């Protein structure tokens, strides 16, 4: 079969779902803002200048960045042991547990976040239980609630790539480390973790990038009190005072940043080719 032919589905996919939408967004970001907040086609860089000038988005952006870093870190810490023990199970058990990890995807994301809403509300069982212990924590409308929702929502995206790289790990390497005197801790940091680097990076990218642009979770669990960059963009399109061109410029700026992160990450993964 002609190798070139195999490129076409991929190219078509990229064209339809990436190149065309991004072009549209780019055109919008270069257009003028009409009085109704939508657009008047044209060519101007004023939206980008408006982006740099007042810096009113800086706060939400820092929020997004912090939450993305925290979410990624928590997902890594929580997901690693899960992925590791998954990878060490016998084949049949592995497949069952893997299915359980993916199971939440069978339910709509919104529904699942609403479920958290019920758990996290002040009169929910979690708050009550904590109050009984003398801890008065407000989840809804606070960064903690948003963080819980984000970690919950993105954990599978961390577990799956971690699992994929740990599953390939030759366990005799861990035994070799023990044989040479390494404790569990040492063999983890010197052998297991470095050899799962591609999984760590892939999982982190898969969590970090979407969380950076998240708007559903902060809207629902943050109740508008946890401003995030993604929420800001969403409001520019669907909010009470729409401003499509500015929203488009913000979206493209975020995409530029994300691309930088991605390029760096891929370079790291490429360096760790020996894993495969």
């Amino acid at each position, binding site marked *: 079969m002609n190798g070139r032919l195999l490129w076409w589905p991929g190219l078509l996919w990229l064209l339809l779902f990436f190149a065309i939408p991004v072009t549209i967004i780019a055109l919008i970001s270069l257009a003028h803002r009409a009085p109704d907040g939508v657009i008047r086609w044209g060519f101007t860089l004023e939206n980008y200048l408006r982006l740099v000038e007042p810096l009113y988005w800086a706060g939400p952006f820092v929020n997004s960045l912090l939450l993305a870093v925290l979410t990624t870190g928590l997902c890594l810490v929580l997901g690693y042991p899960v992925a590791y023990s998954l990878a060490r199970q016998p084949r049949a058990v592995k497949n069952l547990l893997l299915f359980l990890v993916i199971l939440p995807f069978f339910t709509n994301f919104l529904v699942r976040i609403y479920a958290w809403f019920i758990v996290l509300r002040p009169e929910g069982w979690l708050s009550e239980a904590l109050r009984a212990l003398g801890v008065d924590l407000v989840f809804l409308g606070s960064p903690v609630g948003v963080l819980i929702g984000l970690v919950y929502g993105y954990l599978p995206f961390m577990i799956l790539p971690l699992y994929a790289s740990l599953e390939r790990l030759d366990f005799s390497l861990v035994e070799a480390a023990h044989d*040479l005197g390494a404790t569990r801790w040492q063999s983890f940091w010197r052998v297991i973790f470095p050899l799962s680097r591609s999984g760590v990076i892939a999982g982190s990218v898969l969590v970090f990038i979407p969380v950076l642009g998240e708007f559903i979770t902060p809207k629902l669990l943050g109740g508008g009190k946890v401003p995030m960059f993604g929420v800001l963009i969403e409001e520019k399109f669907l909010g009470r005072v729409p401003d499509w061109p500015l929203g488009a410029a913000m979206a493209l700026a975020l995409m530029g940043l994300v691309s930088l992160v991605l390029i760096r990450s891929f370079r790291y993964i490429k360096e760790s080719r020996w894993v495969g």
Partner: protein
Amino acid sequence: MDEVSIELREISKRFGQTLVVDRLTLQIYKGEFFSLLGPSGCGKTTTLRIIAGFERPDSGELFINGSRATHIPPQERDVNLVFQSYALFPHLTVEQNVAFGLEIQKLPRAQIRERVGKALELVRLSGLGARFPHQLSGGQQQRVALARALVTEPSVLLLDEPLGALDLKLRQEMQLELKRLQRELKITFLYVTHDQEEALQMSDRLAVMHQGRVLQVGTPPEIYERPATRFVADFIGESNLLEGHVVRTVGQRALVQIGSLQANVLSDIPLQPHQRVTLALRPERIHLCPPTESNGIWTGLVEALFYSGKETRYRVRVSPEVTLTVISSAVNGISVGERVGLTWDLQSLRPIPERLP
């Protein structure tokens, strides 16, 4: 050669229903090159993993350098294992691989560097320290695995079929290399192999394993010349196995009836008249002579002949129920269908002490 380095006492290990190691008892002395020899699946790797600490025996005790080690974790045992698959760390260079054990011991940098250099020199890999394992040939990876295990100076080195993945030439070269290393370092080597020739050539002593049990322990000549069971006689080299019964005994000599034939046997085990007995006779210990010669013990008909250059292999029918395999390196012009005489030294025909069922 008296101090015991490794001792297994009645060690047993099951995986599910299968008894993989069956009441294994062994003593391996300090500084010895000891081999565990047996067919694939007989439990050699499991035995080695029990000694290294990766498997818990179900029963029995293990002693390393005189102290009980049955429940000590692998990282605290003074033994290093050279894995069958080498198990080199793919993300570390050759130097870093070799330095691993020393870094765990938190030795000073300078000392680590010096010892790694020496270890690489010892396995003749100086100059390749900066490479990654995947940039090395199989033989070189093998040497790195050796250097990594040797550099921490364990009192025992466990080697699991270390040459199994190498081609014949390289294997022979590495056999010599391993012997040299063992002589120079005076470390106890416990060497696992399924290659009987390798075990005979390299070992000071060896144990033959079969289905989780040790059948015989001894020096290579002891094992080869006096196999204790039919399995050993057959697995180590080749043997003609002859079933018969004792006609009469005179001191250490016995006359054994094998079908319609008779043979004299010199026995170091007590034999009784009428006792059934299995005799082993090595094909290369049988000499062919003209059938008329008076010193021929038996005569037979050459049924088949295989010439392979350095030796010729004959199938000789000596009676309706018995054929013998004979290996001869002499060029003697014998051809299929000829009658020949067969002779051997008295001590080459050995009764096997194993009890018959």
